[in-house]
């Protein structure tokens, strides 16, 4: 879809996902690193069995790109990047407008190439107080309001797995680039400069707590794995014979009756069989009663496998999902049928591993196979 689009990326950490997304849509992405390579090559997980030129994290975010090493403190480096940007459609910078600091502000670049779109994926807004940081994924997640919701009430707040503030900012960077591409085509062929705030991207993801305070004055608290509605909280995560499933005793009488019917068929419904679910408001039930009902459910769930429960739920519309581990997700027939996992074949590094593939399926384009991330050799 974007095979006609040339992208130049200077993103050491934050912003690298923007280039990865555009590459997976077919764009030609050239990553520029300074002498010695990105510092983020040396952050993250290393391969246990071999020594590589970059962390596995860096290799994941930079697959699908080609690379060039330039010293932007030297005239030759500046000349080279000016020449590249004269031909490019999109420039991505991570962290801030580093080229502006090097004397190549957007005015200069757009005189040579009026169609150039410059996307800056920074920790904070350009107009605000914090600008280019310092910040990391963790500090942005903390500020976003999301960590306040994640974890247990009696333990410290938790981030989400991976680097989600950077991921959200990276996707917003791609949205910014493509929005400007539409404006360029619809108007006069001129590009523009866009500044994306990773902090704001993360705040948008935590969509509930700020408006709850705005409209009710209530401050959200961590509730562990309990879903709190009304007076009581209900469990969301259940151990089963071979792992975990998610299901909740919420006010959907059809689903609750369906589950109780399955338990009754096994002779395991106990007191649940006596409850008039159509006339019980679970949100108002006392916590002790919920706990007693949940104990009966737990005993029955433990006799079943997650696959068995997921199949029964799908047949009857009971709203239960199996909780897949990463290993489960990697061998799930669903993602195999959709060709989601692509195999990254990195001959230079003697590395073969699965990598998430197409962003979505479309009738207009075959998935783009990932090429290995570049080396940092000059």
């Amino acid at each position, binding site marked *: 879809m974007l095979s006609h689009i040339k992208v130049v990326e200077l993103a050491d950490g934050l912003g690298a996902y923007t280039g990865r997304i555009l590459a997976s849509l077919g764009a030609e992405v050239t990553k520029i690193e300074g002498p010695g390579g990105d*510092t983020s090559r040396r*952050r*993250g*997980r290393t391969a246990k069995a071999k020594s590589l030129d970059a*962390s*596995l994290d860096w290799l994941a975010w930079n697959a699908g790109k080609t690379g060039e090493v330039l010293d932007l403190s030297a005239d030759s480096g500046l000349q080279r990047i000016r020449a590249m940007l004269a031909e490019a459609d999109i420039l991505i910078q991570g962290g801030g407008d580093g080229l502006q600091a090097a004397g190549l502000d*957007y005015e200069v670049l757009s005189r040579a190439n009026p169609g150039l779109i410059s996307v800056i994926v920074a920790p904070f*807004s350009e107009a*605000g107080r914090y600008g280019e940081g*310092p*910040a*990391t994924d*963790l*500090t942005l997640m*903390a*500020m976003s*309001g999301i*960590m*306040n919701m994640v*974890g*247990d009430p009696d333990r*410290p707040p*938790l*981030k*989400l797995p*991976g680097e*989600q503030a950077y*991921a959200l900012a990276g996707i*917003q960077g791609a*949205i*910014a680039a*493509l*929005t400007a591409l539409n*404006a360029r085509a619809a108007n006069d062929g001129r590009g523009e400069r866009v500044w994306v705030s990773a902090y*704001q991207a993360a*705040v*948008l993801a*935590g*969509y509930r*707590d700020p*408006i709850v305070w*705005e*409209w009710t004055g209530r*401050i959200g608290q961590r509730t562990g794995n309990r879903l709190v509605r009304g007076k009581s909280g209900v469990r969301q*995560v259940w151990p089963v014979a071979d792992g975990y499933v*998610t299901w909740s005793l919420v006010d959907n009488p059809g689903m609750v009756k369906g589950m109780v019917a399955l338990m009754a068929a096994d002779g395991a419904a106990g007191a649940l069989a006596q409850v008039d679910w159509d006339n019980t408001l679970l949100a108002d039930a006392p916590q002790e009663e919920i706990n007693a009902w949940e104990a009966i459910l737990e005993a029955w769930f433990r006799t079943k496998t997650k696959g068995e429960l997921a199949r029964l739920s799908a047949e009857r519309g009971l709203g239960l*999902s*199996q909780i*897949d581990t*990463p290993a489960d997700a*990697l061998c*799930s*027939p669903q993602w195999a049928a959709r060709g989601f996992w692509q195999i*990254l074949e990195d001959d230079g590094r003697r590395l073969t*591993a699965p990598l*998430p593939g197409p*962003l979505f399926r*479309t009738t*207009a*384009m075959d998935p783009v196979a990932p090429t290995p991330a570049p080396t940092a050799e000059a």
Partner: protein
Amino acid sequence: MPGALDGVKIADFSWVGAGPRATKDLADNGALVVKIESRKRLDLGRLSPPFKDGKRDPDGSAFFAQTNTGKLSVTINLGEPRGVTMARALIAWADVVVENFGKGFLDRLGLSWDEMKAIKPDLILVSVSVAGRTGPLSDIRGYGNSAAALSGQAALSGWAGSPPHMPPFAYGDVVAPMFATVAVLAALEHRRRTGEGQRIDVSQVEPLMHTLSDIFLAHGVNGPDEAVRGNRHPSSAPHGVYPCRGHDQWCAIACEAESQWTALRALIGDPRLDDPGFSDAPGRKAREDLLDAVLSDWTAGQDKHELASRLRALGVPAGAVQDGRDVFTDPELSAAGHYVRVEHPTMGASDMPAPPMRFSRSKIEVRPAPLLGQHNRAVFVDLLGLPESEIVGLEAEGVLA
């Protein structure tokens, strides 16, 4: 300044979060988004708290309002054949159709992809569903946490050694619509170049797995790793949240570079950190329990906001763990124009979030969310050119309802 997407026409059949968040992005950037709703099947977002004055009102949900800024709302009863005719008129008008119905619903209405293409040959159709429209799980319906459960996200959340964790918000309703926005924008570019439309299938699970690319690649190379859970970083330390003054108050501190650690160590001035073992990141990782204990002793009793500001001023990455009030009142967000005050007929003056980006030439305009069916006349009469008498009749007969 024009909006970047002025002139782009979108017929939006989607509801709750997974579609509407995508079309909000597009509307704020100037696209004309017509939201197709029905009183017979209310968008559950309209029933989602918090509400203006605590009163359950389909036009008074703040959740709905912030998810649907700048859209027009029409009501069509798709259970009526004449309602389907009106939907066909909107599809003929649109550049893009967005939907997140259950699989097969549109086919049963006579609005399959082939039938839509016959109405509008260069149409872009975007469908959002839990597991995607193909594969053995394509029939499953979405219930809150399904995407987190199936993506590995829930299993990776929480503390090492503990059961999977499901926080009380639907992250699958956040990431998938961002991918849908990317899809619409890339498809518009493709259509301009080739004249072709396309059908796009976005799963809620796949985008969550995509944002975990680093963890999945490492899993493939090294095998399972419980250390990815919790707040610690695989190679940097310190990297965590530390207790501050007050009940449940915390500050995040993370050192990625040695210069940051040197500044932090000098500020703390605790002799326990004089051990040369703390002088590089691998040494700090090996002593992380002690490191975290020393930091916690030092942060306890300090104000989280003051501490974070002081550390940032020294170049040390830090951020207060903010709750909903802290976020809503954050001066950084005010300076950035993150919340835009709009006047809503039911909610009154209210603050709606803007996209997290600023363009040098294109205008972002955040306008109030529509009342249910507010724009039946504006859309069917003014935009599509249908006779007003016909619209009045269809409203009275419960077709536009």
